[in-house]
């Protein structure tokens, strides 16, 4: 993938994530911080499908943005064909792993299997 495409995705995910994370944070504040973190309320959030979709989107967007940022930092620290390939594929693998792990939590909780 061309670097310009990767960076456009990096910027796009950032802008999209800002709006969604703001909603996620505001949910904690509008309900009362401690109260919003009680088990039943959190469970209700997960079971509410639009909120679950929003969480999934945040997970995907921030994973892409975060691990691409890490890839950029690591590529600048050391160079070499093998190292660069390892960093790129390693960050991609970590990204997919984190999305899979987080998605499991969202899907299982949303389906009521808790």
């Amino acid at each position, binding site marked *: 993938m061309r670097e310009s495409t990767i960076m456009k995705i990096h*910027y796009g995910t*950032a802008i999209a994530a*800002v709006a969604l994370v703001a909603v996620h944070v505001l949910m904690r*504040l509008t309900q009362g*911080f401690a109260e919003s973190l009680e*088990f039943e309320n959190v469970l209700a959030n997960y079971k509410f499908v639009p909120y679950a979709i929003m969480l999934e989107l945040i997970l995907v967007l921030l994973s892409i943005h975060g*691990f691409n*940022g890490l890839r950029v930092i690591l590529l600048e620290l050391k160079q070499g064909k093998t190292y660069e390939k390892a960093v790129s594929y390693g960050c991609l693998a970590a990204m997919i792993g984190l999305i899979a792990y987080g998605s499991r939590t969202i899907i299982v909780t949303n389906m009521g299997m808790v």
Partner: protein
Amino acid sequence: MTQDENKEGIGGMINPRRYGIERVAYWLMRLSGLGLLAYFIAHIYETSNILRGQVGWDELMEMTSTTEGHIILTLVIGMCVFHTVNGVRVMLGHGGVGVGKPSRPDYPYDPASQNYRHKIGIYSAIVLAAVAMMYGMAVMFGE
């Protein structure tokens, strides 16, 4: 870094002094980005405790609803706000917005791209992060 290349190395990359607030903003952006990534991974892991039901969730709350947990969350709030606001400034800068217009340079050759607009953006990011941290602390420690 070998002596042959005479690169400054990580020390040069992370040294925010000597070159003005823009270099400090670059350094804070890197720091906050790495901090937020670490928090994000930890957050995904800790919230998976909900799969263990009420017991698992209560254990998580016991661990995080402490003074240390709140302080960490306060830092995360600060990093998040700074990274976001400065990130918007950097994105606009990357598109050529607010970097000035090319013109014939004249002594003392002050760079137009290091202008008040971007400096205000950086200081705004720092101030907003501080305000958000204070608000966060008021919410968390106030309850």
